[in-house]
């Protein structure tokens, strides 16, 4: 059947297997006549081709809760469970997931495979810091436990390993206790990039922090933005809330997203805040997952799909390099619809994890002629400044760019070859970037 990532590019024909149990996954691994490469897939929320291959095996039905322990503040669940399901279950008990990305529709397995980060990376690090143990199905069908103490090499390779070491079957997550799941949100306005980055630096004590940039504002207003800070309220609602959702039922003509409409959208966002209130109390859903409000928002980019380009860059020179990136984009006339800037804290030791101390900028581009050359130019700026691209969003990075920026790739391969010598687990992405 046809399969794509969240960005809907590339679109490929693949054999899609959706086993309903761990035993059936093992069985499909053992089909001897099949030697085609295989990649696990959770909720299909990675943007590019990291969950695409000739054979794709879904963990969607491994979505059961296995254990919950108040004493250790942990939950164990199948890797296909989504963050939404976990949140719905734990928030009434006074717990929260320590790291949340921009959507609640990702699976636990996917969150581990991409070692995702959230609006509190500067304080709390990335998702895998809160995975106390995981069960990994290896290429031979054997299931082994991995953690910082059990098979630590494999744990380091699997966390952020894009599903290339095996299939994550279940995981134990550490939860955090919160006073409330309501968020006291403070929205600050920055007139340009310098002001934005200064505000982010000054407000580093804030638990959550993220900036929305208007990438179409130019010259003096380059990088004008809204910085959304957040803290859990002292008291307030603990229960799960559900919002009504809008849905985009089919791809809209991509012409609807043009320079004019994107510019209007960004100005509207900016001005809404400018004349709105600075402090408000909001539900966690609207603070963490604003885009989840529109189901299938990825269809807005039209049938061609879109690419998300997210890079991280060290603090030194970050202002110059980010503004160089913005200027280059501006000159190209390809306005990204959404641009999100965030400060990262220290990185971890996982071989392929994306975040490290510095800034990260994520940009959405409609897939169109001339985009790839532009992104290749951006790659050069980022590499020259010691940055790198996020694998979970990538659909086009070259092997050279990858190997020059993910310096532990050889260590990763060493561990992978021990458990998967024939490279059974491989994706279009891992082939492209020279990992398999």
């Amino acid at each position, binding site marked *: *059947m*046809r399969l794509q990532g969240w960005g809907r590019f590339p679109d490929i024909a693949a054999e*899609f297997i959706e086993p*309903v*149990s761990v035993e059936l996954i093992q069985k499909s691994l053992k089909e001897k006549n099949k030697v085609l490469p295989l990649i696990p897939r959770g909720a299909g929320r990675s943007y590019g081709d990291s969950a695409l291959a000739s054979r794709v095996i879904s963990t969607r039905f491994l979505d*059961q809760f*296995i*254990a919950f322990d108040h004493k250790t503040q942990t939950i164990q669940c199948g890797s296909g469970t989504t963050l939404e399901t976990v949140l719905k*279950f734990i928030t009434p008990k006074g717990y929260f997931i320590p790291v949340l990305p921009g959507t609640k529709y990702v699976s636990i397995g996917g969150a581990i495979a991409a070692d995702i980060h959230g609006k509190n990376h500067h304080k709390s690090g990335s998702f895998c810091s809160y995975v106390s143990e995981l069960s990994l199905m290896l290429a031979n069908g054997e299931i082994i436990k991995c953690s910082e103490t059990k098979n630590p090499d494999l744990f380091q390779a699997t966390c952020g390993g894009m599903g290339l070491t095996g299939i994550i079957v279940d995981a134990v997550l550490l939860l955090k206790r919160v006073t409330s799941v309501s968020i006291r949100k403070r929205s600050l306005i920055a007139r340009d990039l310098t002001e934005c980055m200064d505000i982010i630096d000054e407000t580093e004590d804030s638990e959550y922090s993220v900036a929305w940039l208007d990438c179409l504002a130019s010259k003096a207003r380059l990088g004008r933005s809204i910085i959304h800070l957040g803290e859990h309220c002292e008291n307030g609602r603990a229960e799960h809330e559900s919002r009504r959702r809008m849905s985009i*039922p089919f791809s809209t003509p991509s012409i609807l997203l043009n320079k004019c409409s994107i510019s209007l959208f960004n100005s509207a966002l900016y001005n809404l805040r400018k004349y709105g209130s600075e402090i408000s109390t909001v539900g966690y859903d609207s603070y963490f997952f604003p885009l989840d409000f529109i189901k299938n928002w990825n269809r807005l980019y039209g049938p061609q799909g879109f690419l998300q380009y997210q890079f991280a860059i060290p603090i030194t020179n970050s202002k110059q390099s980010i503004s160089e990136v913005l200027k280059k984009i501006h000159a190209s006339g390809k306005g990204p619809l959404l641009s999100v800037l965030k400060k990262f804290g220290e990185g971890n030791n996982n071989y392929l994890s994306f975040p490290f101390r510095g800034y990260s900028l994520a940009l959405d581009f409609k897939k169109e002629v001339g985009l790839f050359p532009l992104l290749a130019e951006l790659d050069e700026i980022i590499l020259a400044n010691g940055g790198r691209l996020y694998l979970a969003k990538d659909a086009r990075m070259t092997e050279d760019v990858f190997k020059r920026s993910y310096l532990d790739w050889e260590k990763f391969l060493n561990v992978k070859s021990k458990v998967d010598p024939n490279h059974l687990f491989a994706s279009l992405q891992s082939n492209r970037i020279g990992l398999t």
Partner: protein
Amino acid sequence: MKILIIGATSAIAKSTARIYAERNSQLFLVGRDENRLNEMKIDLELRGASSVRILALDIVEHEEHAIPINLAAKFLENIDLTLICHGSLPNQESCETNFKEIEKAIKINALSTISLCTEISKQLKKQKGGTLAVITSVAGERGRQPNFIYGAAKSMVSTYLQGLRGKLLPFGIHVIDIKPGLVDSPMTAGLDKGPLWATPESIAVQIVNGVSRKQHTVYAPSYWRFIMFAVRSIPEFIFKKLKI
């Protein structure tokens, strides 16, 4: 609520059981795969089910359907809701040339369900009340070229339920026919999914609502009521040429 689910490991049943578990229901699950039933039991108890008991049994192989119903009645005492979610999608092509396949498909999708309903009816009459909800399919509303064997089986169950509904009415028993449309579940694995496809989770919500509102026929999602109205309205001289 005290609930008996037959075909409990199906995707729709699993999602429905989870909603009832969150409402602290007591559940008796019948399904084929014991491991998966055990996993479900743990999951449902964590989600809030007051207690869960499982029974691994192949309903099609074992024709003594009184046994599971009696065990369920013993555990639940009074069965408030019985949900039958069992069936499988036969291969239409191979059915058309092989009557054995058709026989098997009818047995799985219609006869075993009707046999179960017969036994459940006895129990419900005894307890003078309860709801019987059976999952059939929109495919049963008109014989369409791509899947009329499956459709014929489901149609048999729907017709049966219509009659049964009246027969059980004096006993205060309510009968619901649930007709899902296209559902993205293991039963339809490998098919390309378009905009009309729904998730098992959304079907489960419709089922729970249909049960509490005592509806007779639940189209899930509800827009299938209109789609099927349109499909039924197509004159036969046109319909016979359609490969939909």
